[in-house]
Protein backbone atom coordinates (compact mmCIF):
# COMPACT_ATOMS: atom_id res chain seq x y z
CA UNK A 1 0.00 0.00 0.00
CA UNK A 2 2.75 2.41 0.94
CA UNK A 3 4.72 1.81 -2.23
CA UNK A 4 1.57 2.46 -4.21
CA UNK A 5 0.94 5.72 -2.36
CA UNK A 6 4.56 6.71 -2.91
CA UNK A 7 4.26 6.09 -6.65
CA UNK A 8 1.01 8.08 -6.84
CA UNK A 9 2.28 10.91 -4.72
CA UNK A 10 3.94 13.08 -7.43
CA UNK A 11 0.68 13.13 -9.42
CA UNK A 12 -1.37 13.70 -6.29
CA UNK A 13 0.64 16.55 -4.81
CA UNK A 14 -0.04 18.97 -7.63
CA UNK A 15 -0.88 22.61 -7.11
CA UNK A 16 -4.40 22.08 -8.43
CA UNK A 17 -5.14 19.12 -6.15
CA UNK A 18 -3.78 20.91 -3.12
CA UNK A 19 -5.88 23.97 -3.91
CA UNK A 20 -8.91 21.75 -4.36
CA UNK A 21 -8.31 20.08 -0.98
CA UNK A 22 -7.69 23.41 0.70
CA UNK A 23 -10.94 24.80 -0.63
CA UNK A 24 -12.81 21.67 0.46
CA UNK A 25 -11.22 21.93 3.90
CA UNK A 26 -12.29 25.58 4.00
CA UNK A 27 -15.86 24.53 3.28
CA UNK A 28 -15.82 21.89 6.01
CA UNK A 29 -14.32 24.39 8.40
CA UNK A 30 -16.89 27.05 7.47
CA UNK A 31 -19.81 24.63 7.82
CA UNK A 32 -18.52 23.49 11.20
CA UNK A 33 -17.79 27.00 12.43
CA UNK A 34 -21.17 28.33 11.35
CA UNK A 35 -22.91 25.37 12.95
CA UNK A 36 -20.95 25.73 16.17
CA UNK A 37 -21.27 29.52 16.50
CA UNK A 38 -24.83 30.04 15.24
CA UNK A 39 -25.91 26.74 16.80
CA UNK A 40 -24.52 27.82 20.18
CA UNK A 41 -26.32 31.16 20.02
CA UNK A 42 -29.60 29.64 18.90
CA UNK A 43 -29.14 26.80 21.37
CA UNK A 44 -28.64 29.29 24.20
CA UNK A 45 -31.79 31.15 23.17
CA UNK A 46 -33.73 27.88 23.13
CA UNK A 47 -32.35 26.80 26.50
CA UNK A 48 -33.12 30.16 28.11
CA UNK A 49 -36.63 30.11 26.65
CA UNK A 50 -37.20 26.76 28.27
CA UNK A 51 -36.15 28.00 31.71
CA UNK A 52 -38.84 30.70 31.73
CA UNK A 53 -42.01 30.35 33.74
CA UNK A 54 -45.41 31.93 33.49
CA UNK A 55 -48.27 31.46 31.11
CA UNK A 56 -47.38 34.30 28.78
CA UNK A 57 -44.34 32.52 27.39
CA UNK A 58 -45.89 29.05 27.32
CA UNK A 59 -46.29 28.99 23.49
CA UNK A 60 -42.62 29.92 23.05
CA UNK A 61 -41.60 27.21 25.50
CA UNK A 62 -43.63 24.63 23.60
CA UNK A 63 -42.05 25.79 20.36
CA UNK A 64 -38.53 25.52 21.79
CA UNK A 65 -39.30 22.09 23.23
CA UNK A 66 -40.76 20.81 19.96
CA UNK A 67 -37.86 22.17 17.91
CA UNK A 68 -35.30 20.58 20.19
CA UNK A 69 -37.00 17.21 20.40
CA UNK A 70 -37.57 16.95 16.64
CA UNK A 71 -34.12 17.94 15.45
CA UNK A 72 -32.35 15.79 18.01
CA UNK A 73 -34.30 12.75 16.87
CA UNK A 74 -34.33 13.08 13.11
CA UNK A 75 -31.15 11.76 11.42
CA UNK A 76 -28.85 14.49 10.13
CA UNK A 77 -29.18 13.17 6.58
CA UNK A 78 -32.97 13.31 6.68
CA UNK A 79 -32.95 16.89 7.93
CA UNK A 80 -30.47 17.76 5.22
CA UNK A 81 -32.64 16.22 2.48
CA UNK A 82 -35.70 17.93 3.87
CA UNK A 83 -33.96 21.31 3.94
CA UNK A 84 -32.64 20.66 0.44
CA UNK A 85 -36.11 20.04 -0.99
CA UNK A 86 -37.73 22.87 0.94
CA UNK A 87 -35.14 25.28 -0.45
CA UNK A 88 -35.61 23.78 -3.93
CA UNK A 89 -39.30 24.46 -3.72
CA UNK A 90 -39.27 27.99 -2.35
CA UNK A 91 -35.82 29.48 -2.93
CA UNK A 92 -34.51 27.52 -5.86
CA UNK A 93 -31.45 29.67 -6.42
CA UNK A 94 -30.08 29.20 -2.89
CA UNK A 95 -26.53 27.84 -2.95
CA UNK A 96 -25.96 24.31 -1.68
CA UNK A 97 -23.58 25.67 0.91
CA UNK A 98 -26.33 27.80 2.45
CA UNK A 99 -28.68 24.82 2.55
CA UNK A 100 -26.04 22.77 4.33
CA UNK A 101 -25.16 25.63 6.70
CA UNK A 102 -28.81 26.13 7.67
CA UNK A 103 -29.18 22.42 8.34
CA UNK A 104 -26.04 22.15 10.44
CA UNK A 105 -27.11 25.21 12.42
CA UNK A 106 -30.54 23.74 13.14
CA UNK A 107 -29.11 20.45 14.29
CA UNK A 108 -26.31 21.99 16.34
CA UNK A 109 -28.85 24.31 17.99
CA UNK A 110 -31.05 21.39 19.01
CA UNK A 111 -28.20 19.39 20.55
CA UNK A 112 -26.48 22.36 22.14
CA UNK A 113 -29.71 23.67 23.64
CA UNK A 114 -30.01 20.44 25.62
CA UNK A 115 -26.37 20.64 26.74
CA UNK A 116 -26.78 24.28 27.75
CA UNK A 117 -30.09 23.63 29.46
CA UNK A 118 -28.44 20.92 31.53
CA UNK A 119 -25.79 23.47 32.53
CA UNK A 120 -28.32 26.14 33.46
CA UNK A 121 -30.28 23.63 35.52
CA UNK A 122 -27.14 22.58 37.38
CA UNK A 123 -26.90 26.01 39.02
CA UNK A 124 -28.50 25.97 42.46
CA UNK A 125 -32.04 27.41 42.55
CA UNK A 126 -31.01 29.72 45.40
CA UNK A 127 -28.81 31.63 42.95
CA UNK A 128 -31.83 32.34 40.76
CA UNK A 129 -33.85 33.29 43.82
CA UNK A 130 -31.24 35.72 45.14
CA UNK A 131 -31.02 37.35 41.71
CA UNK A 132 -34.81 37.64 41.48
CA UNK A 133 -35.00 39.20 44.94
CA UNK A 134 -32.52 41.85 43.79
CA UNK A 135 -34.45 42.68 40.63
CA UNK A 136 -32.26 40.93 38.09
CA UNK A 137 -34.17 40.34 34.85
CA UNK A 138 -34.06 36.87 33.32
CA UNK A 139 -31.27 37.84 30.92
CA UNK A 140 -29.29 39.63 33.61
CA UNK A 141 -29.57 36.54 35.81
CA UNK A 142 -28.37 34.30 32.99
CA UNK A 143 -25.52 36.59 32.03
CA UNK A 144 -24.13 37.63 35.41
CA UNK A 145 -25.02 34.72 37.66
CA UNK A 146 -26.03 31.50 35.93
CA UNK A 147 -23.89 31.18 32.80
CA UNK A 148 -20.61 31.95 34.62
CA UNK A 149 -21.40 29.05 36.94
CA UNK A 150 -22.78 26.78 34.23
CA UNK A 151 -19.75 26.93 31.90
CA UNK A 152 -17.94 24.20 33.72
CA UNK A 153 -20.86 21.86 33.22
CA UNK A 154 -21.53 22.95 29.64
CA UNK A 155 -18.03 22.96 28.12
CA UNK A 156 -16.98 19.28 28.24
CA UNK A 157 -20.10 17.88 26.51
CA UNK A 158 -20.24 20.91 24.18
CA UNK A 159 -16.72 20.32 22.91
CA UNK A 160 -17.44 16.61 22.66
CA UNK A 161 -20.36 17.54 20.47
CA UNK A 162 -18.29 19.96 18.37
CA UNK A 163 -15.83 17.18 17.55
CA UNK A 164 -18.60 14.80 16.50
CA UNK A 165 -20.24 17.61 14.63
CA UNK A 166 -17.25 18.34 12.39
CA UNK A 167 -17.43 14.74 11.20
CA UNK A 168 -21.16 15.02 10.61
CA UNK A 169 -20.68 17.89 8.17
CA UNK A 170 -19.42 15.16 5.81
CA UNK A 171 -23.07 14.40 5.12
CA UNK A 172 -23.31 17.70 3.25
CA UNK A 173 -21.51 15.86 0.44
CA UNK A 174 -24.76 13.99 -0.10
CA UNK A 175 -26.44 17.06 -1.55
CA UNK A 176 -23.36 18.00 -3.55
CA UNK A 177 -21.54 20.44 -1.29
CA UNK A 178 -17.85 20.20 -2.12
CA UNK A 179 -16.45 19.71 1.35
CA UNK A 180 -13.71 17.32 2.45
CA UNK A 181 -15.53 14.02 2.06
CA UNK A 182 -16.83 15.06 -1.35
CA UNK A 183 -13.29 16.04 -2.31
CA UNK A 184 -12.08 12.61 -1.26
CA UNK A 185 -14.62 10.96 -3.52
CA UNK A 186 -13.65 13.21 -6.43
CA UNK A 187 -9.96 12.41 -6.03
CA UNK A 188 -10.76 8.72 -5.73
CA UNK A 189 -12.84 8.91 -8.91
CA UNK A 190 -9.98 10.65 -10.67
CA UNK A 191 -8.03 7.44 -10.22
CA UNK A 192 -6.08 7.96 -7.04
CA UNK A 193 -6.19 4.98 -4.72
CA UNK A 194 -8.74 5.15 -1.87
CA UNK A 195 -5.89 4.87 0.62
CA UNK A 196 -4.31 8.03 -0.67
CA UNK A 197 -7.47 10.04 -1.39
CA UNK A 198 -9.24 9.25 1.86
CA UNK A 199 -6.00 9.08 3.82
CA UNK A 200 -5.38 12.71 2.93
CA UNK A 201 -8.92 13.60 3.96
CA UNK A 202 -8.48 11.78 7.26
CA UNK A 203 -5.38 13.78 8.08
CA UNK A 204 -7.13 17.07 7.32
CA UNK A 205 -10.14 16.14 9.48
CA UNK A 206 -7.72 15.35 12.27
CA UNK A 207 -5.94 18.68 11.83
CA UNK A 208 -9.25 20.51 12.18
CA UNK A 209 -10.63 18.44 15.00
CA UNK A 210 -7.61 17.97 17.24
CA UNK A 211 -6.87 21.65 17.95
CA UNK A 212 -10.53 22.13 18.79
CA UNK A 213 -10.41 19.33 21.33
CA UNK A 214 -7.23 20.84 22.80
CA UNK A 215 -8.93 24.22 23.01
CA UNK A 216 -11.79 22.59 24.90
CA UNK A 217 -9.39 20.93 27.31
CA UNK A 218 -7.50 24.20 27.82
CA UNK A 219 -10.71 26.10 28.53
CA UNK A 220 -11.81 23.48 31.02
CA UNK A 221 -8.46 23.62 32.77
CA UNK A 222 -8.64 27.39 32.91
CA UNK A 223 -12.13 27.34 34.37
CA UNK A 224 -11.05 24.80 36.93
CA UNK A 225 -8.01 26.83 37.97
CA UNK A 226 -9.97 30.07 38.12
CA UNK A 227 -11.78 28.45 41.00
CA UNK A 228 -8.34 27.90 42.54
CA UNK A 229 -8.73 26.67 46.12
CA UNK A 230 -10.97 23.65 45.58
CA UNK A 231 -8.95 20.75 44.30
Amino acid at each position, binding site marked *: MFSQIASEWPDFATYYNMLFLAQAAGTTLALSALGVVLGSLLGLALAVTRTTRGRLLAPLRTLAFTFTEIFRRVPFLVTLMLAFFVFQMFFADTSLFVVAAVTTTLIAAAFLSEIIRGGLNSVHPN*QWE*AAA*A*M*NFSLLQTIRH*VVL*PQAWRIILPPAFGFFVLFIKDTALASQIGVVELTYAGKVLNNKGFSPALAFGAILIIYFLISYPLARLGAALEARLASS*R*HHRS
Partner: protein
Amino acid sequence: MHHLDITALEARYGAHTVLSGINLSVGRGDVIGLIGPSGSGKSTILRVLMGLLPPGSGSIKLDGVAVNYANAREVRRLRDRIAIVFQQYNLFQNMTVLQNVTITPIKIKKRPKAEVEEEAKALLAKVGLADKFNSYPDQLSGGQQQRVAIARALALRPEILLLDEVTAALDPELVSEVLDSIRLLAKEGMTMMIVSHEMGFIREVASRVVFMASGKIVEEGPAAQIFDAPTQARTQDFVSKILRH
Protein backbone atom coordinates in the same frame (compact mmCIF):
# COMPACT_ATOMS: atom_id res chain seq x y z
CA MET B 1 -49.81 55.45 58.99
CA HIS B 2 -47.73 52.30 59.29
CA HIS B 3 -44.75 51.70 57.09
CA LEU B 4 -45.91 48.23 56.16
CA ASP B 5 -49.44 46.92 56.58
CA ILE B 6 -50.35 43.32 56.01
CA THR B 7 -54.09 42.65 56.05
CA ALA B 8 -55.94 39.31 55.84
CA LEU B 9 -53.04 37.79 53.92
CA GLU B 10 -53.43 34.28 52.56
CA ALA B 11 -50.93 32.16 50.66
CA ARG B 12 -50.82 28.58 49.48
CA TYR B 13 -48.39 26.12 47.96
CA GLY B 14 -50.67 24.25 45.56
CA ALA B 15 -53.60 22.98 47.58
CA HIS B 16 -51.80 23.49 50.86
CA THR B 17 -52.65 26.70 52.73
CA VAL B 18 -49.51 28.06 54.38
CA LEU B 19 -50.75 31.45 55.52
CA SER B 20 -54.27 32.36 56.51
CA GLY B 21 -55.65 35.63 57.80
CA ILE B 22 -52.34 37.29 58.61
CA ASN B 23 -52.67 40.84 59.95
CA LEU B 24 -49.47 42.60 60.83
CA SER B 25 -48.31 46.20 60.94
CA VAL B 26 -44.71 47.34 60.93
CA GLY B 27 -43.70 50.90 61.80
CA ARG B 28 -40.48 52.65 60.86
CA GLY B 29 -37.63 51.45 63.02
CA ASP B 30 -39.57 48.44 64.28
CA VAL B 31 -37.74 45.19 64.75
CA ILE B 32 -40.30 42.42 64.42
CA GLY B 33 -39.28 39.00 65.69
CA LEU B 34 -41.21 36.16 64.05
CA ILE B 35 -41.10 32.96 66.05
CA GLY B 36 -42.96 29.69 66.06
CA PRO B 37 -42.58 26.00 65.25
CA SER B 38 -41.25 24.84 61.89
CA GLY B 39 -43.85 25.05 59.15
CA SER B 40 -45.82 27.75 60.92
CA GLY B 41 -45.44 30.15 57.98
CA LYS B 42 -42.86 32.59 59.38
CA SER B 43 -40.54 32.34 56.41
CA THR B 44 -43.47 32.27 54.03
CA ILE B 45 -44.49 35.77 55.12
CA LEU B 46 -41.06 37.03 54.10
CA ARG B 47 -41.19 35.16 50.79
CA VAL B 48 -44.61 36.61 49.99
CA LEU B 49 -43.42 40.11 50.91
CA MET B 50 -40.49 39.76 48.51
CA GLY B 51 -42.74 38.56 45.72
CA LEU B 52 -41.08 35.14 45.65
CA LEU B 53 -44.43 33.47 46.37
CA PRO B 54 -47.60 35.08 45.05
CA PRO B 55 -50.13 35.98 47.73
CA GLY B 56 -53.50 34.27 47.37
CA SER B 57 -55.60 37.07 48.82
CA GLY B 58 -55.39 39.94 51.28
CA SER B 59 -53.42 43.11 50.93
CA ILE B 60 -49.90 44.32 51.55
CA LYS B 61 -49.48 48.08 51.78
CA LEU B 62 -46.26 50.06 51.81
CA ASP B 63 -46.77 53.57 53.17
CA GLY B 64 -50.49 53.11 52.66
CA VAL B 65 -50.23 52.09 49.01
CA ALA B 66 -51.33 48.55 48.15
CA VAL B 67 -48.82 46.46 46.20
CA ASN B 68 -50.17 44.51 43.25
CA TYR B 69 -48.00 41.40 43.19
CA ALA B 70 -49.37 40.34 39.80
CA ASN B 71 -47.77 43.42 38.27
CA ALA B 72 -44.08 42.83 37.53
CA ARG B 73 -43.24 46.52 37.57
CA GLU B 74 -44.78 47.02 41.00
CA VAL B 75 -42.89 44.03 42.33
CA ARG B 76 -39.66 45.50 40.97
CA ARG B 77 -40.37 48.81 42.68
CA LEU B 78 -41.11 46.97 45.90
CA ARG B 79 -37.83 45.06 45.70
CA ASP B 80 -36.05 48.38 45.49
CA ARG B 81 -37.35 49.12 48.96
CA ILE B 82 -37.26 45.75 50.73
CA ALA B 83 -34.26 43.42 50.87
CA ILE B 84 -33.99 39.86 52.12
CA VAL B 85 -31.18 37.77 53.60
CA PHE B 86 -31.65 34.04 53.11
CA GLN B 87 -30.94 31.12 55.41
CA GLN B 88 -28.47 29.62 52.94
CA TYR B 89 -26.84 33.03 52.24
CA ASN B 90 -27.38 32.54 48.46
CA LEU B 91 -24.20 34.40 47.62
CA PHE B 92 -23.26 34.32 43.96
CA GLN B 93 -20.60 31.63 43.81
CA ASN B 94 -18.92 33.04 40.71
CA MET B 95 -18.19 36.42 42.27
CA THR B 96 -15.84 37.71 44.91
CA VAL B 97 -17.18 39.11 48.16
CA LEU B 98 -16.90 42.66 46.86
CA GLN B 99 -18.56 41.78 43.54
CA ASN B 100 -21.41 40.11 45.41
CA VAL B 101 -22.08 43.34 47.25
CA THR B 102 -21.60 45.69 44.31
CA ILE B 103 -23.17 43.89 41.36
CA THR B 104 -26.76 44.89 42.00
CA PRO B 105 -26.12 48.58 42.72
CA ILE B 106 -23.83 48.80 39.66
CA LYS B 107 -25.50 46.56 37.08
CA ILE B 108 -29.14 46.72 38.07
CA LYS B 109 -29.49 50.09 39.77
CA LYS B 110 -26.90 51.71 37.49
CA ARG B 111 -25.18 53.65 40.22
CA PRO B 112 -21.61 54.92 39.71
CA LYS B 113 -19.08 52.17 40.28
CA ALA B 114 -16.58 54.12 42.38
CA GLU B 115 -19.23 55.33 44.80
CA VAL B 116 -20.79 51.86 45.11
CA GLU B 117 -17.45 50.19 45.76
CA GLU B 118 -16.55 52.67 48.44
CA GLU B 119 -19.89 52.15 50.14
CA ALA B 120 -19.59 48.36 49.78
CA LYS B 121 -16.17 48.36 51.42
CA ALA B 122 -17.55 50.41 54.30
CA LEU B 123 -20.45 47.96 54.70
CA LEU B 124 -18.11 44.97 54.63
CA ALA B 125 -15.90 46.63 57.21
CA LYS B 126 -18.98 47.19 59.34
CA VAL B 127 -19.77 43.46 59.37
CA GLY B 128 -16.11 42.74 60.11
CA LEU B 129 -14.94 41.54 56.71
CA ALA B 130 -12.61 44.33 55.64
CA ASP B 131 -9.92 41.77 54.77
CA LYS B 132 -12.08 39.52 52.60
CA PHE B 133 -12.98 41.72 49.62
CA ASN B 134 -11.36 39.43 47.09
CA SER B 135 -12.29 36.08 48.59
CA TYR B 136 -14.83 33.80 46.96
CA PRO B 137 -17.83 32.60 48.97
CA ASP B 138 -16.57 29.02 49.19
CA GLN B 139 -13.38 30.27 50.85
CA LEU B 140 -15.38 31.71 53.73
CA SER B 141 -17.00 30.17 56.76
CA GLY B 142 -20.78 30.12 56.94
CA GLY B 143 -20.79 32.99 59.39
CA GLN B 144 -18.60 35.10 57.12
CA GLN B 145 -20.77 34.27 54.12
CA GLN B 146 -23.87 35.28 56.00
CA ARG B 147 -22.29 38.59 56.96
CA VAL B 148 -21.45 39.19 53.30
CA ALA B 149 -25.09 38.48 52.52
CA ILE B 150 -26.13 41.08 55.08
CA ALA B 151 -23.73 43.63 53.56
CA ARG B 152 -25.10 42.77 50.13
CA ALA B 153 -28.65 43.42 51.30
CA LEU B 154 -27.64 46.71 52.95
CA ALA B 155 -25.92 47.87 49.75
CA LEU B 156 -29.39 47.94 48.21
CA ARG B 157 -30.25 50.67 50.73
CA PRO B 158 -33.50 48.99 51.74
CA GLU B 159 -36.15 50.61 53.88
CA ILE B 160 -37.01 47.24 55.36
CA LEU B 161 -34.66 44.32 55.84
CA LEU B 162 -36.04 40.77 56.02
CA LEU B 163 -33.89 38.16 57.73
CA ASP B 164 -34.96 34.58 57.09
CA GLU B 165 -33.45 32.25 59.71
CA VAL B 166 -30.08 33.70 58.96
CA THR B 167 -28.28 31.73 61.65
CA ALA B 168 -30.09 28.43 61.23
CA ALA B 169 -27.50 26.95 58.83
CA LEU B 170 -24.50 28.06 60.90
CA ASP B 171 -22.30 26.14 63.28
CA PRO B 172 -23.08 27.29 66.83
CA GLU B 173 -19.76 29.08 67.30
CA LEU B 174 -20.43 31.23 64.21
CA VAL B 175 -23.87 32.41 65.24
CA SER B 176 -22.79 35.26 67.48
CA GLU B 177 -20.74 37.09 64.84
CA VAL B 178 -23.82 37.27 62.61
CA LEU B 179 -26.07 38.32 65.47
CA ASP B 180 -23.61 41.09 66.36
CA SER B 181 -24.02 42.55 62.89
CA ILE B 182 -27.79 42.47 63.17
CA ARG B 183 -27.68 43.97 66.65
CA LEU B 184 -25.71 46.88 65.21
CA LEU B 185 -28.39 47.47 62.57
CA ALA B 186 -31.12 47.41 65.17
CA LYS B 187 -29.27 50.08 67.13
CA GLU B 188 -29.08 52.23 64.01
CA GLY B 189 -32.85 52.09 63.65
CA MET B 190 -33.10 49.74 60.65
CA THR B 191 -36.62 48.41 60.17
CA MET B 192 -36.37 44.64 60.24
CA MET B 193 -38.46 41.51 60.24
CA ILE B 194 -36.46 38.67 61.72
CA VAL B 195 -37.46 35.03 61.50
CA SER B 196 -35.31 33.17 63.98
CA HIS B 197 -35.01 30.33 66.43
CA GLU B 198 -32.50 32.30 68.50
CA MET B 199 -34.96 33.16 71.24
CA GLY B 200 -32.49 34.97 73.45
CA PHE B 201 -31.54 37.19 70.54
CA ILE B 202 -35.14 37.89 69.52
CA ARG B 203 -35.95 38.78 73.06
CA GLU B 204 -33.07 41.22 73.11
CA VAL B 205 -33.48 43.04 69.80
CA ALA B 206 -37.15 42.71 68.85
CA SER B 207 -39.38 45.67 69.59
CA ARG B 208 -42.30 43.33 69.00
CA VAL B 209 -42.52 39.55 68.89
CA VAL B 210 -45.01 37.66 66.74
CA PHE B 211 -45.74 34.05 67.57
CA MET B 212 -47.10 31.98 64.71
CA ALA B 213 -48.48 28.49 64.41
CA SER B 214 -50.18 26.66 61.52
CA GLY B 215 -50.08 29.66 59.21
CA LYS B 216 -51.73 32.02 61.68
CA ILE B 217 -50.57 34.66 64.10
CA VAL B 218 -51.41 33.31 67.52
CA GLU B 219 -50.14 36.15 69.63
CA GLU B 220 -48.06 39.27 69.30
CA GLY B 221 -46.69 41.79 71.72
CA PRO B 222 -43.54 43.01 73.45
CA ALA B 223 -40.88 40.35 74.00
CA ALA B 224 -41.49 40.37 77.73
CA GLN B 225 -45.14 39.51 77.23
CA ILE B 226 -44.57 36.71 74.73
CA PHE B 227 -41.73 35.06 76.61
CA ASP B 228 -42.71 35.71 80.23
CA ALA B 229 -46.47 36.05 80.27
CA PRO B 230 -48.00 34.57 77.09
CA THR B 231 -51.77 34.69 77.09
CA GLN B 232 -52.47 31.95 74.56
CA ALA B 233 -52.16 28.25 75.34
CA ARG B 234 -50.15 27.52 72.17
CA THR B 235 -47.70 30.29 72.95
CA GLN B 236 -47.32 29.04 76.53
CA ASP B 237 -46.71 25.55 75.24
CA PHE B 238 -44.09 26.71 72.70
CA VAL B 239 -42.32 29.01 75.13
CA SER B 240 -42.19 26.42 77.88
CA LYS B 241 -40.67 23.90 75.46
CA ILE B 242 -37.96 26.21 74.20
CA LEU B 243 -37.11 27.51 77.64
CA ARG B 244 -36.70 24.03 79.03
CA HIS B 245 -33.42 23.55 77.19
